[in-house]
């Protein structure tokens, strides 16, 4: 934060809009968490603490120069992978609800896959930049190493099991690779083979995924049991109608809607503020996407561009998945709504990603050209 606030001169429109959007989303989040907790002040207090931490992480990541990220990328990636391996060790990782995803550090639970989200964005951006546009198009020096680089953490996350985060990591990494210029001639045939195969393995290996899909397709078959969540989510959104029943007056959060302040907060919000409020949230995320893409487009070099787009995509993709789940477009995944859902790791990670975007937006003046790529206009020498 300091880096931005101390240099007001350099806080241009793009980043100002980005900050306004993020703070608006956080504001909506505070209101929603307060309402959905139905007077549980403890929950609200914790949420506010997490918000402060998120602001700190924005400031922290925005303060570090881009070249440091690039240098640190292998280290971050290495630490993240090691943590992901350690969490699978029964003595170290804590098992909650059949999945070994957490380290218990005193009162705080730490999820290494959350850290991986952040590390993955930096690692992929750094790797793409180090390859250069020509080599990345090839099979052996481009596509194949990219598969290894992204495949390892994705696999580790998938076996926790945390299929939702694995899908999220895959999507983010490969959208970044796509932007960096990886050849679609390699990606499409591979995807055609890998995606159905992975799908089969996942469904075979993790029964709950298959169940979720089944429930998603026919929630009405078991409204009291497995279809409950989806049905309740739709009832929450639907009963909000155009303008909602009023802030704080929703009844779905009173033990009807499961996870009303985390994964399904969008539904709880939808009941109280209706279509107008939901659309406002949607528009804010669309603005975030636009801002992020424009920062990427005006970035100083391919590393910065890929990094900015990766961070933007990571945020908006999570939001889109979450909203798609609550509106029953997709089956349940357990991905939180960035800035709005209650939850420390999600807020801090989101904050860190925003910090990256701010940094990229701030380093446009400094020039480090990438030879051979015409995307970036040769800047005037200062």
């Amino acid at each position: 934060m300091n880096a931005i606030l101390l240099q007001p001169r350099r806080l241009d429109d793009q980043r100002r809009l980005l900050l306004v959007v993020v703070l608006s989303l956080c504001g909506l989040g505070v209101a929603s968490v307060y309402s959905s907790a139905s007077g549980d002040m403890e929950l609200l207090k914790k949420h506010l603490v997490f918000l402060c931490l998120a602001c700190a992480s924005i400031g922290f990541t925005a303060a570090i120069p881009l070249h440091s990220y690039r240098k640190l990328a292998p280290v971050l990636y290495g630490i993240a992978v090691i943590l992901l391996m350690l969490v699978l060790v029964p003595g170290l990782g804590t098992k909650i609800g059949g999945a070994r995803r957490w380290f218990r550090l005193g009162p705080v639970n730490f999820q290494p896959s959350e850290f991986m989200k952040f590390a993955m964005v930096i690692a992929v951006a750094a790797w793409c930049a180090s390859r250069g546009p020509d080599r990345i198009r090839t099979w052996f020096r481009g596509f194949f190493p990219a598969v290894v680089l992204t495949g390892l953490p994705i696999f580790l996350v998938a076996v926790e099991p945390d299929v939702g985060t694995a899908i999220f990591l895959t999507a983010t990494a490969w959208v970044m690779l796509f932007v960096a210029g990886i050849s679609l001639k390699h990606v499409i045939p591979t995807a055609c083979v890998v995606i159905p195969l992975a799908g089969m393995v996942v469904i075979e290996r993790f029964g709950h995924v298959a169940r979720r899909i089944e429930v998603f397709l026919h929630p009405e078959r078991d409204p009291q049991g497995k279809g409950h969540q989806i049905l309740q989510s739709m009832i929450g959104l639907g009963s909000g109608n155009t303008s909602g029943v009023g802030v704080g007056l929703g009844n779905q959060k009173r033990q009807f809607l499961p996870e009303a302040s985390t994964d399904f907060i969008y539904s709880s919000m939808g009941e109280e503020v209706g279509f107008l409020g939901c659309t406002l949230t949607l528009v804010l995320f669309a603005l975030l996407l636009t801002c992020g893409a424009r920062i990427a487009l005006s970035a100083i070099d391919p590393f910065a561009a890929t990094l900015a787009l990766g961070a933007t995509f990571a945020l908006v993709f999570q939001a889109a998945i979450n909203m798609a789940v609550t509106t029953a477009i997709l089956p349940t995944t357990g991905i939180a709504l960035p800035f709005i859902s209650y939850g420390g790791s999600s807020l801090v990670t989101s904050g860190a990603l925003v910090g990256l975007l701010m940094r990229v937006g701030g380093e446009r003046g400094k020039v480090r050209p990438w030879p051979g790529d015409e995307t970036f206009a040769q800047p005037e020498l200062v």
Partner: protein
Amino acid sequence: MRFRIQMVLVLGLLALGGIGVRLYGLQVVKGPWYGELALRQHQRAVVTRAHRGTIHDRNGHVLALSVVRLSLFANPSRIKDPVGTAGALGNILGRPAAELEKRLRRKGYFVWLGRKLEPTQVAAIRALKVRGLGFREEIKRIYPNGSLACHVLGFSGTDNTGLEGIEARYDVALTGKPGRYRVYRNGRPRGPRLRYPELEEGRSVAGADVVLTLDLWMQYEVEQALDELVRKHAPRSATAIVLDSATGEVLALAGRPGFDPNKFSKSPRANYRCRAVTDTYEVGSTIKPLVAAAAIAEGHAQPDDEIFCENGSWRIRGRTLHDHKPFGNLTVSGIIEKSSNIGIAKVASHLGPEVLYSYLSAFGIGRSTHVGLSGEERGLMQPWSRWTSSTMVSIPMGHEIALTPMQLATAFNCLASGGVHVAPRILLRMTGSAGDSSHRFAPMQTARVFKRELVEKIMDPMLCQVVQRGTGKRAKIEGLAVAGKTGTAQKIDPETQTYSHSKHVVSFVGYAPADRRHGEPKITVMVLVDEPTKEVGGGGQVAAPVFRQIVHRIFASGRLP
């Protein structure tokens, strides 16, 4: 690279747009439908029962009232020591520990252990301090006088609905109006509920208090007399009714066998029946004075007319009548005094069927008395057009017509009241919960049947003779003019379809004081005993002493209406 970034941007915006379209469909288009679903699961209607009205006797004594009692339940999943808990509760509740233990071991979160407990039991259970036990308020109906007036009161069931007697008959008034409101519930089955004033749908209105014409003290005396009768004669059943002669108000109504409405389920269902209105009997000779009065009123006979009683056996219209002992010439008064079947048949023979029928109807025979008790029978009397040739002989001696005890008492009360038929009633007034809607019921309809002089000059002395010298001698009370008539009717044996010689319905009906120079008769008392099995005798031996005891106690105490 620029192109690909723009592609991601455009595709991303399209995806978000898609979600927007979905939101529109879900919230705006199908919003009302989901709103309906939400309302259905969020709101619950809650019904609050109104306080059930109290039943009083005419002097304000409480006969039935509702109190709040606590019922004990357990959450079996939270009971740690089922054996110990069951043992301790078994001692307090007075129930086998094994049965309680079985309940405490059930799966689930709720079992009843004891309903509507006494406050002392509740205190003892609270002192145990066992986790997983809880109390819930329930309304218990209490009959503080036990079995007293049980057939009148009836009882209400566990859910506080009247099932028998006054409780059933005036259930709607006693129940009052339940209140209704809607709450916002919580997703959990026993979660907290939110109540909003705008969701009230009507406050509960407490049930009306019912005041009966009964006099608790007289009721007690009547029941005492019946208990003595049961000890002495062990009848199949017995009924006694005390009416206020002038107003027809039922001062006491008792029956045997009875039951305790506090523990009604412990008695057989047959005991619930209020035989005074639900059972009909061929009452026999008690009807004779009414027939004689009709004949005298119509000018077909004078009390001093002598009638030959055929020395106890008279063959007429294909059948032979008998008297309980042979009589020669008897006056009409003598026929009543000695209860001669042949004599009354001859007296009545001058009345045509149509006239006799109209008199019997005027006494209230053959139609409901509408006294205000549930399950009332109309009795049995064929319309005169369908009478056979022997009916005119049978009816005067109390056969071929069947009356409820209440009808018999009411019919006889026509004489006590000075020739007026007064419809009996048991409901004195109802008091609305608002206090101002108190409604006192006007005395029931009255209709003159006989001239007053006929009753005063002829029937009173005639019936006093019965008690002084005739079949009803055991009803005599020193210093009180008592008028009455005995009745002994053979019952039809269900096996042979003929009149049995061993099974009888015996009765005694009368009123006092019967000397109108010092005031009108106060009470009319009817005692009817079905099939006495010990020390068998006629109405004069079995029913008259009960009548005497009741009348004596009432007059001796001076607690007259």
